[in-house]
């Protein structure tokens, strides 16, 4: 929904703030001048904030297009235009950006899908079934999410080392291993979002389907999941973004250059030699951010609803 529309039912026409002409309080000239001044002040604040918000992003886009850039670049933004940095980005085998990009997408997508599935299954049980230990389970999930996995990074490293001794394909330096670790955090705030949403799907629909002969799995996969598409999108996207941003565990588990994710690879690339690598890093940053920013704005209204679901009633 757009922010400009007020829920119509809340207003009688007399108090509608949009109804300028029907406004009941007559305004004197001095008062009008004061409101004009307030409005001007608001414009200034909003424009200033926008500039501060956008500037770093404009700067990095500009730096990525400036071929002879150092860290400072040139004093003006967008004074040069060249794709040289983007070409260099993909041509240096010591810093396999394309591999990092694909790794990140793969890990992010699989983790997001897995999180939606695992969280959805659990949320369905919590929402539709009554069993002993249900409340305890909900409380546990709520408590566990206060302790993010990165706190136990040492233990996770040692655990994965042990798993790798038995199954090298699942241990250190494997994407599957990293995804499994991320899925350990699947039951958490996500389950809560889905649980809340499933609760809003009327139970009568389940019952009707049951009368028609549908089993529980069919009800879950073909009815509940489909009716909950918005919340699945939110959970998937939040999990995707979180995975892309995850640095600690990925940096500890993935060591081979071509296995790394964008967060680890780009950080180490820029940490080695900040100034010299900056223009190429800028190009990498722009490309890395692009899918996330696009997804964010496409799904923006769902995200906002997801963020506020727990709080705004």
């Amino acid at each position: 929904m757009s922010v400009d529309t007020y829920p119509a039912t809340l207003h009688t026409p007399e108090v509608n703030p949009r109804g300028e002409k029907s406004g009941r309080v007559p305004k004197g000239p001095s008062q009008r001048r004061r409101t004009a001044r307030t409005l001007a002040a608001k414009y200034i604040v909003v424009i200033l904030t926008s500039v501060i918000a956008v500037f770093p992003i404009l700067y990095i886009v500009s730096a990525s297009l400036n071929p002879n850039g150092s860290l400072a670049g040139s004093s003006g933004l967008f004074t040069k235009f060249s794709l040289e940095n983007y070409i260099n980005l993909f041509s240096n085998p010591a810093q396999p950006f394309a591999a990092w990009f694909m790794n990140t997408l793969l890990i992010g997508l699989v983790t997001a899908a897995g999180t939606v599935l695992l969280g959805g299954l659990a949320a369905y049980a919590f929402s539709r079934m009554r069993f002993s230990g249900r409340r305890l389970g909900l409380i546990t999930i709520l408590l566990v999410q206060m302790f993010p996995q990165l706190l136990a990074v040492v233990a996770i490293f040692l655990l994965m080392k042990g798993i790798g001794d038995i199954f090298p394909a699942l241990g250190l330096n494997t994407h599957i291993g990293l995804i499994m670790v991320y899925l350990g955090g699947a039951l958490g705030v996500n389950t809560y979002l889905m649980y809340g949403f499933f609760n809003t799907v009327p139970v009568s629909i389940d019952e009707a389907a049951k009368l028609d002969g549908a089993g529980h799995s069919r009800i879950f996969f073909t009815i509940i999941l489909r009716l909950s598409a918005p919340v699945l999108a939110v959970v998937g996207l939040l999990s995707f973004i979180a995975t892309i941003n995850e640095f600690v565990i990925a940096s500890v588990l993935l060591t081979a250059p071509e296995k790394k994710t964008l967060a680890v690879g780009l950080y180490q690339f820029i940490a080695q030699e900040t100034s010299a690598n900056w223009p190429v890093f800028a190009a990498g940053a722009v490309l890395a951010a692009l899918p996330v920013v696009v997804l964010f704005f496409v799904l923006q209204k769902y995200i906002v609803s997801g963020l506020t679901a727990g709080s705004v009633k």
Partner: protein
Amino acid sequence: MTTTELQSSSGTDRSRKRQRPIARAAAGAPSTWVVLIKIISLGVLDAVVIYAAFILALNEDWVLAAVALVAATLINWIYIRRGSLPAKYLIPGTVFLLIFQMYAIVYSGYVAFTNYGDGHIGSKEAAVEALINKSLTRVPDSPAYPMVVVEQFGQLSFLVTDPDGEALIGGEDRPLQPADADLEGDRAVAVEGYTTLDFAGVLAEQEQLAAMSVPLTDDPNDGALRTPDGSQAFVYSAKMQYDETADAFIDTATGKIYEDTGDGAFVAADGTQLMPGWKIDVGFENFVRAFTEESIRGPLIAVVLWTFVFAGFTVAATFAVGVFLALILNDWRLRFRRTFRVLVILPYAFPVFLSALIWSGMLNPQFGFINQVLFGGAQIPWLTDPILAKFSILMVSLWLGYPYMFLVATGALQSIPEELVEAAKVDGAGPWAVFRRIKLPLLMVSMAPLLIASFAFNFNNFNLIYMLTRGGPQDITTDMNVGATDILITLVYKVAFGETGGRDFGLASAFSIIIFVLVAVISVISFRRTKTLEELN
């Protein structure tokens, strides 16, 4: 968008899509593909677990092997029998949760009570063996043993002919024993059941061969055979002799004695340690060190204080700015509101690690855009002065965090009934009074849980700190790898995986436990105050 609206919008969805799923559902009972997926998943799980248990049993790790088998049996039982439906839906997520979160947390607790880290990785036996191997030197004037390399099931062995002409076979950790070998002249060249490697085969395995040492007898002190080229082996003996009864190492050259003093390493009277040592349980020593050793306690206290300041300021500042912006952009008289909204939430859409790295570049004292362009070439140490670095962190944190608060506050403000505001205005309340007395209290009701969550998140906001300053500037008054902007979680990371200095998993885990306790206290207090738990039903 508020929940109620989300519900109503999904309500229209629902009526549209309602027909299809139900019509399909009528087709019949348990669908074949669900059964198929179930069978395949259980099969894969069983194969994996049985293999893992087998390997664990081979390593004599009986407890883990038993746990794996019992868990797998339980899971099979639950999925194969009818009923226990909730368990069927909860198990997939719970398995991952148990292994990679719960177990990891418990295991951190265990590691915190050990000296696990560089030089203290394995068992004592492994350490003894490594020390003997490390001190192996060729025995002067000892005879050469002609040999060939033989292979069985991927395992390499030496087939040697000793100076008496007897054929012996042995490998890494498998002492020499007589072999019934085929002779070629007076040299053993093959033995039944093994394949003899030709020259190319030896070349291919060169690296492994060079690292192999084959014990002469059961007693490792007797020495071992090593080969430089795969055709001749020489007797090496350990410079360090291990005396099992005294549980001590004797340096045969100097006569110095190294004893096990209970510190997880062999230590000489003058304090020199033999490395590697081994992993031992040290009880509360890591915690005792953290709280009593001045070189750790000082930095630790500073880090804990800064962690609280950082998280507290971030929540307060982002909340204030977010609400302020939301109030301003809620004014319908402003034009281009949609555009402004998109612009001010842009920092939130950008991946955090990239934003932090970009800011670290812009704030770079020598070459950064801010100094070079905005301050005309000044050398302001934004990230290298302890105070300024903290200031920079707080500002960037504000930049990163206010859009979230803005988004949430916008939603919350719109759900405040307009009548309340109008009624207050009629009663003569000015804009400030309306905000202070009506909007803010209502905002706090809905946003308090999010503020707590935000505090907990920023308490462990590793990415921002590490990407922006790496915790620096370095604190030079202590030999610990800690800086002015380190928060607890970055300290844990540096101690455990730091580039400088030995990795100390034990101490790092002890710090983790301290974070656990702090976070637990915070959550208990906050859950009490927000009554979240009581609302569960």
